[in-house]
């Protein structure tokens, strides 16, 4: 066999593979062999170019050529080449899909309507489909109202159908296949050592993510096991890699059998194709094996591909609709469902060569199957076009005279700058959201009344003719916030500071090893847990305690108890002081760790000087360390204040919602955060003054915490400068 014929054989083989597969399988399955063929094709093309120059692979390498027959360039060129190869087909496919699928769906619908002899406006059918999807929770609005019971009863089945037919499942297998391919080609080298572990880890993470999103919970567990083996085995050698590859192959076969309509035939054919192509390539003396760097490039390209496809899947309503329309016909009531099922069956029958008796249905089915075929060939054409664009583009644009590395690095630099700007964007978003809405609020409600008014009752009047309505004087709310925060800080500051001092100065390593985790756990507990604790344990406890105090103070144990008229120690269902105290517990680890940092930053010489003069430890701490660390402690205190002001869940659950301008801290107290939560928790419409007041409160909250934070940051900065 001479060279030309072997090349033409190869080309013919690839063409046969692509066309044959497109005939046998659906369009989704096509993408897998297409990409396989694509990579192999690229390599064989390179081999061909090398042979054209009558060089051996070794000679070509010595002349500075890589296995693609291209000049051996640094890997940035390779990266750009891979991008060129992958992006055009993917982008074209995305466009093709999002245009083609709705058209196909629309055709099925109109055929069914014709069969039914009805001329229903197709939009109403769309509407039905959309509401059904909405009822399934696939889009936001809509409810199950307006459905018959049978339809609602069938909905769970429909959901199952959706989850089984998920596009993402295919993606999962695809990613696994691509990963295994890259794995196989790169050989075991890329998977030994630390870098290999990171690679496998990344690969498995991608797999897990996709498998979980697609509902393959157990598959992700299997990947996790593989991952664990990989991470903990010291040396991964070739046999392991082969086993993994074979396992993946089995998975692919299962995929083909499960997902493709042609059942048994499908996997026999795909097995033959894979085996045949391997034999052909092997006999040609080709052992496709990429370098580590190329492997990373393939992986990057794969990640891009998966990400893009996932994005389209999430973004394109049409993809869902592709399956959705078929299913919706199934659940649609009565005649419509039967007719569409008939049509779908007829299409299937026609494809397997059977005769459909009803001429109308047969005609419709043949029209539909022609349309589907056209769609599939179009898919193929689009892929080929994209590949051609990519190859041509890469040949034109990836050249040594382009400075690939500097372009690459400046792009990366720009990307990093954008990432840093994201944090600024968040702040800008906050400020914009608050300011623009607050402006609206203050145009409806005067700012001085809001800031200095003494009455807060946010509920709108129920009847139109009701006089008065809401009062939005926020002073009681601010007052409550201050009181609760004050209580919290009174609890947290001494306890936090003293525990930091003890941990830093006195504790033996053993004591520290006991208490450090305790403080860490306290710091990690979510605030909602503190809130529930305050509501369900703190308030009953406080009731008992203050009840007892009252009992003693009023001398109830005497035969004639006293009655203290001005003392009210009763605690209701909610209480400001309990919320404050529990918030104080929450702040203990916060203050403790910040004061610890501050104390540790004091230079050793100060401490040693005091000790050398004969000071006790406590004297050193009180007279030297704390004064020296005071700015740092102050900074921590300010940050803690800012946290106390902004804390939400504890006060929502335990402090209450009633705005009381009272000196009795045992009473209900409301805070800014409680009011914001209560106003926004329903489906709030931002058109009335009372819901808009959220933004007035929000601005006050944001500005006050901002000032506290800035002051704290500034103090801590100066303090650091002083000692370093």
């Amino acid at each position, binding site marked *: 066999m001479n060279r030309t014929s072997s090349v033409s054989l190869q080309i013919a083989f690839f063409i046969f593979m692509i066309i044959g597969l497109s005939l046998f399988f659906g369009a989704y399955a096509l993408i897998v062999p297409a990409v396989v063929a694509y990579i192999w094709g690229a390599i064989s093309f390179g081999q061909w170019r090398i042979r054209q120059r009558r060089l051996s692979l070794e000679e070509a390498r010595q002349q500075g050529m890589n296995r693609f027959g291209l000049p051996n360039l640094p890997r940035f060129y390779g990266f750009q080449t891979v991008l060129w190869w992958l992006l055009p087909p993917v982008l074209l496919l995305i466009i093709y899909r999002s245009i083609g699928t709705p058209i196909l769906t629309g055709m099925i619908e109109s055929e069914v309507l014709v069969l039914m002899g009805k001329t229903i406006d197709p939009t109403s059918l769309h509407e039905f489909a959309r509401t059904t999807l909405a009822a399934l929770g696939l889009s936001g609005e809509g409810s199950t109202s307006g459905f018959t019971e049978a339809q609602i009863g069938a909905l769970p089945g429909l959901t199952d159908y959706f989850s089984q037919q998920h596009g993402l499942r295919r993606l999962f297998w695809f990613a696994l296949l691509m990963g295994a391919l890259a794995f196989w080609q790169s050989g075991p080298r890329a998977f030994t050592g630390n870098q290999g572990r990171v690679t496998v880890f990344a690969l498995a993470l991608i797999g897990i993510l996709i498998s979980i999103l697609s509902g393959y919970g157990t598959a992700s567990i299997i990947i996790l096991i593989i991952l664990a083996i990989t991470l903990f085995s010291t040396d991964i050698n070739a046999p392991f890699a082969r086993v993994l590859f074979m396992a993946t192959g089995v998975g692919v076969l299962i995929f083909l059998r499960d997902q493709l309509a042609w059942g048994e035939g499908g996997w026999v054919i795909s097995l033959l194709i894979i085996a045949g192509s391997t034999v052909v390539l092997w006999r040609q003396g080709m052992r496709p094996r990429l370098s580590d760097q190329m492997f990373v490039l393939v992986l990057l390209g794969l990640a891009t591909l998966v990400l893009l496809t996932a994005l389209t899947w999430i973004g394109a309503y049409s993809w869902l609709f592709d399956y959705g329309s078929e299913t919706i016909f199934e659940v649609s009531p009565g005649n419509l469902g039967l007719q569409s099922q008939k049509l779908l069956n007829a299409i299937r029958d026609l494809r397997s060569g059977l005769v459909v008796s009803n001429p109308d249905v047969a005609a419709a089915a043949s029209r539909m199957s022609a349309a589907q075929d056209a769609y599939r060939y179009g898919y193929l054409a689009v892929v080929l076009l994209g590949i051609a664009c990519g190859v041509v583009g890469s040949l034109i644009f990836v050249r040594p005279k382009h400075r690939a590395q500097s372009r690459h690095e400046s792009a990366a630099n720009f990307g990093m700058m954008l990432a840093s700007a994201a944090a600024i964007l968040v702040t800008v978003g906050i400020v914009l959201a608050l300011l623009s809405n607050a402006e609206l609020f203050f145009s409806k409600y005067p700012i001085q009344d809001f800031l200095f008014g003494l009455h807060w009752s946010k509920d709108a009047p129920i009847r139109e003719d009701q006089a008065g309505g809401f009062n939005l004087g926020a002073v009681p709310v601010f007052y409550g916030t201050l009181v609760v925060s004050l209580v919290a800080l009174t609890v947290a500051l001494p306890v936090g500071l003293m525990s930091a001092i003890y941990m830093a100065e006195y504790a033996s390593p053993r004591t520290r090893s006991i208490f450090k985790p305790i403080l860490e756990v306290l710091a990690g507990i979510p605030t909602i847990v503190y809130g529930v604790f305050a509501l369900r344990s703190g308030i009953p406890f406080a009731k008992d305690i203050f009840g007892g105090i009252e009992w003693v103070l009023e001398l109830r144990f005497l035969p004639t108890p006293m009655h203290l008229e001005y003392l009210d120690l009763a605690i209701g269902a909610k209480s400001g002081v309990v919320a404050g105290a529990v918030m104080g517990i929450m702040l203990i680890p916060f203050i403790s760790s910040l004061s610890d940092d501050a104390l540790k930053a004091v230079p050793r010489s100060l401490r040693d000087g005091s000790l050398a003069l004969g000071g006790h430890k406590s004297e050193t701490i009180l007279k030297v360390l704390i004064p020296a660390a005071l700015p740092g402690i102050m900074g921590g205190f300010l940050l803690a204040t800012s946290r106390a002001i902004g804390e939400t869940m504890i006060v929502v659950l335990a402090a209450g919602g009633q705005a009381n301008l009272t000196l009795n801290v045992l009473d209900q107290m409301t805070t800014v955060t409680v009011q914001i939560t209560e106003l926004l928790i329903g489906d709030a419409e931002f058109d009335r003054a009372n819901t808009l007041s959220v933004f007035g409160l929000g601005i006050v909250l944001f500005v006050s915490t901002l000032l506290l934070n800035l002051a*704290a940051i500034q103090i801590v900065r100066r303090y650091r400068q002083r000692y370093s």
Partner: protein
Amino acid sequence: MSPQTSPHQSVQASRRRAARRRGELIFRMLGLLALGLAALFLVALMYSVIKKSYNGFVQSFIQLDIYLDPDIIKPADLAQFQASVGVAPDRWAADIEPDPKLAKRASRSVQRGTSYKKMLQNMFAEEFGDHFTGYETDRQRDKAIAQVAEMISLEAQFQIRDRLISGEYTLGETISLWALAAGDSDVLYKDMKRRTQKNVDSENWILLKRSVDENGLSVLMELRDTGRTRIRPYLGIPKIDLFGWTIAEQQPGFFASASSTSPERAGIAAAAQGTFLMLIVVMVLAVPIGVLAAIYLEKFAPRNQLTDFMEININNLAAVPSIIFGILGAAVIIQWLFPGSRGFPIVGGTVLAFMTLPTVIIASRAAIGAVPPSFEEAALGMGASHQQSVFQHVLPAALPGIASGVIIGLAQAAGETAPLLMVGMNAFINDVCDAGAACLMSKGVGMPSQIYQWAADDDPLFQNKTAAGIVCLLTLVIAMNGLATYIRARFERAN
């Protein structure tokens, strides 16, 4: 040396010394007291949660022998319904043609709760008829029986219905099953187990007057005495798929059910799913952006005012109250950008990602800054570009530190409640979403907001569920924090 010559030996001096030593001791004790208080708070919190959570994980069950009366549900209706929902092996080939009119009636008969309620009531009337005496009319007696039948949870009705539809039960047979007890009788029975003597003053008993009356109490007592009641863990199994084959069917229970209006049926599954989805969104958004920003600020950013501003901004953002991020989500994402996305996990996750971003940046910067400069210098000396030296040498060395920072950020995001309430992720969700990634864009609920919902309910069983939910959340958060600590400890040892 005589004692008079040394001022340190005088009586005043020794008194001063004693006072100083006392002061030292007091100070030291105060420190220990503070630590002890912190530990005490933790113990009190854990105790109160764990004690209550036990009753959230276990439920009472009652053994029932129910006659599936073919007079209440007609066999023809059942067959028609089975055909219409496609339970029959091949519904288009089945003998029974689905008929829209018949199917409507069939589904009304098969699906409606009253059919099963009636069977339950019949069972109670037959077996415990002697408890219902002294009623003037039959109607009053039926009403009393119906009241007692309320002690069986709705879950049991669904169980019977599903098994009937799937063909596991057939009409006309008497089935025996352990049925889940309804919330009130569950609390009552647990209380009965706890105290031998009936204590009428107990808070629970007063509450229970709502639905369990004297008849119910006596029926329950008899059930208990004949050994037909038991308390078992009610944990459930979530559905497990393997390569498209279902290996575990869903079993209702705390870990497999969504929330419900009846406390005994409520579970954490939907909330856990929501939290999981949101964490994925946080990971996808906050981690790459945060790490890239940290690399830039630490290694590439020019020292100028803009960088300074960025730094202050990030530090401030880390201390902005979480509720402000919630307002950002409500106003910018829901009000302006994507109306109608209220309550979607993708929105909640985005807001949490904003909140986590500064944490990730600060932790990553610290980790990158801790890498010895020699790494970078060696790479630069070998001719690597600045970016190559950072990405190929500094970043891998900083990876464990970054990972621990990221995990801490995720744990923080998992426990955050206020922003979720702001973006509407506290809706009542009574179904576990089964649509894969599309769940990101359907109304959802997170674990903390689910706990908040339950916590606001005064029903004692909901309080137990709250505690059980808190145990789940705490396990998750503490495990994540522990992992982060472990990674950091190994990292510090390695450097």
